[in-house]
């Protein structure tokens, strides 16, 4: 082999390496490659594309926006469940965050917001703050930044009630916890589930039940103190809230094998009228609109969990939080930022909110009551207007304490941990990672 050929071999070999390594890499988005004034923006969204309700609803919003804004082209990438968050982290850490990205309040997407990868939306939002629910305008960053414009108010604990079954069984809507427990044997004897809830994923018991019970057992002032570090999560009132979940389990009030049931099964059992009550968040109304018949919608109602003994919180109270929304990449140019804001404002502002309300959502943007909307949506809006709201635990506590707490609730339901132990572990973890 002569020297020239040897060097050529080495050179080609070395050139092959980066080609191989980056062959599968992502390509940079051309913002205005054609020079035709069209701005192309990449969007990363949380969406189950196989969902026959939410996917077409979202596409409808995109179509309306693109028709009204022909100079803005949105290219979507979707993720769902944990995969959404895994990919978001990878994008954030590799410096490839899309132009517009769906973000969550609290700690869920803090690896993006705390790292300064997205813009503060307050300059764009200025003057419109009063048009949103107060809950949605609470600061999300250390200095009150708004990283994402919340699309919805998420009421996380609603006791959906099948009044037809109640009547058939000779029962009435319970006003107290004891009355609810007394209904259990009657409902089970009829081969039905008293309260449908599916907790395999561990978060529903915390998000849809525990937060509401903490407000009832401890009251909102205690909750504020606990978040501020002036009260402890192993205080007796907090333990009492957990004890109620334990009692509901032991007295067979919840779906049999609730911790084996994948999320969605709770709704299925309720829609198929196998359960008298169903505890879930307001977002479920979105699915109920399509899955309940007109006749069913007439006798299904949205109620609050009944009063518990020694209640310190308010009657009928539920738990709620301002939901997720779109934020925009900090690296966008002025023109790109303006285009991105157009989408964000369209989606969470008056126009998109009105459309989403028709689809069964509860927008964070203040809208008039929808007179011509689906009956379930009207019931949701009416419910939201009449109930006091406490905190959702996963919106005020960090990811690790809440993840451990969710799992410990399952442990408590299986009897491998006591309510006191679960409370103590939560306090220890919150104290360790910071409030």
């Amino acid at each position, binding site marked *: 082999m002569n020297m020239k050929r040897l060097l050529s071999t080495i050179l080609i070999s070395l050139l*092959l390496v980066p080609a191989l390594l980056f062959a599968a890499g992502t390509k940079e988005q051309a913002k205005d490659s054609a020079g035709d004034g069209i701005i192309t923006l990449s969007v990363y969204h949380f969406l189950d594309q196989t969902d026959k309700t939410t996917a077409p609803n979202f596409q409808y919003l995109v179509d309306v926006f693109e028709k009204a804004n022909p100079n803005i082209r949105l290219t979507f990438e979707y993720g769902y469940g944990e995969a959404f968050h895994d990919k978001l*982290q990878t994008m954030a850490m590799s410096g490839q965050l899309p132009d517009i990205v769906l973000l969550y309040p609290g700690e869920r997407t803090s*690896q993006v917001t705390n790292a300064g990868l997205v813009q503060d939306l307050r300059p764009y939002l200025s003057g419109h703050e009063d048009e949103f629910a107060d809950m949605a305008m609470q600061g999300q960053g250390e200095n009150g930044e708004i990283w994402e414009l919340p699309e919805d108010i998420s009421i996380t604990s609603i006791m959906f009630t099948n009044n037809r079954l109640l009547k058939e069984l000779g029962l009435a809507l319970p006003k107290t916890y004891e009355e609810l427990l007394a209904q259990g044997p009657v409902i089970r004897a009829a081969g039905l589930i008293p309260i449908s809830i599916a907790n395999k*994923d561990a978060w529903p018991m915390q998000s849809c039940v525990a937060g509401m019970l903490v407000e009832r057992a401890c009251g909102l002032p205690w909750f504020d103190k606990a978040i501020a570090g002036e009260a402890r999560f192993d205080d007796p009132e907090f333990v009492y809230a957990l004890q109620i979940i334990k009692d509901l389990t032991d007295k067979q009030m919840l779906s049999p094998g609730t911790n*084996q*049931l*994948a999320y969605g099964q709770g709704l299925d059992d309720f829609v198929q009228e196998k359960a008298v009550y169903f505890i879930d968040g307001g977002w479920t109304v979105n699915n109920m609109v399509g899955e309940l018949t007109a006749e069913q919608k007439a006798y299904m109602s949205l109620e609050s969990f009944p009063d518990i003994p020694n209640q310190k919180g308010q009657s009928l109270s539920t738990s709620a939080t301002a939901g997720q929304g779109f934020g925009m990449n900090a690296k966008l140019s002025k023109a790109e930022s303006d285009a991105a804001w157009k989408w964000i404002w369209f989606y969470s502002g008056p126009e998109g909110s009105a459309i989403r309300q028709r689809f069964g959502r509860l927008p964070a943007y203040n809208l008039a009551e929808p007179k011509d909307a689906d009956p379930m949506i009207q019931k949701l809006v009416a419910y939201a207007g009449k109930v006091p709201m406490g905190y959702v635990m996963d919106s005020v506590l960090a990811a690790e304490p809440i*993840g451990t707490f969710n*799992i410990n609730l399952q442990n408590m339901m299986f009897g*491998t941990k006591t309510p006191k132990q679960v409370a103590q572990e939560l306090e220890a973890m919150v104290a360790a990672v910071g409030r």
Partner: protein
Amino acid sequence: MTFSQQKRMSYYAFLAPGLLLFASIIIFPVAYSLTLSFTSFGGYGTPEFIGLGNYAKIISDEVFLHSLRNNLLIVAISVFGQIPLGFLLAYLLHRKMVRNGDFYQTMIFLPITISPVVVALLWNQIFSSSGMVVALIRRLTGESQYVIRIFEDRQLAILPILFVLLWMHTGTYMIIFYANLQKMTPSLLEAAQIDGANESQMMIRIILPSMVGTIATTAIFAISGSLKAFDLIYAMTGGGPAHFTEVIAIYMYINTFKYYKYGFGSAASMIIVLLAVGLILLLQYISRKFERRFE
């Protein structure tokens, strides 16, 4: 440049792309992960060096210990379940002890061709509280609240997963053994038969000794595969309920991607590597002993 120097250079030239690729996608990530494992890196900011702090936390964490126990059970079902069963099935097929061998061969191998996620959904449909078996039992017994409680028992919840793993992977080992059995010279067994050896004598004295190398190789596959088990279990149970079916890979995943503890997660991944290397070295030591004995 002399001819031998040129020859050496050409070796390096041909080796370079592969080596660089290997360094980029294997050595660098492992070294980076090892470095991160000594820090409290949370995804942004400067990683803070904390020495062996992550490792100390992990080995004193009861969730990790339970995950390790589950992993070791998976190793056990792989090495002492899938491999012997795979060998036995291959032997039965090779010795034509069953009719319609091709049909059984296809049926046994079929599960491995299905995506683990599909397998998980399939078994979940069968055994979950809303699944077929529970519905059938409820109908037969009239007990509307019936559920299979094994999934809610900390010690036993892993058993259904072990069963599915056995069902899913035995076919792989069967095919490996079957291929190796076919390579054996038929005259060897015929000679043994003429000499009056019965089936079990042929199995113990001829076939098994010639398969020691294959058994060791399959065991290495089984151990390394078992320690990184993730997809099927995550899709089936997500490690739940209450960590009951968690394995180390899921423990690492949850800590890294749900709790944003990249340093901690890296330490957990290094423990998986160390365990795999340790167990494989032990296995190689044992297989060498066997090989010497049979020689």
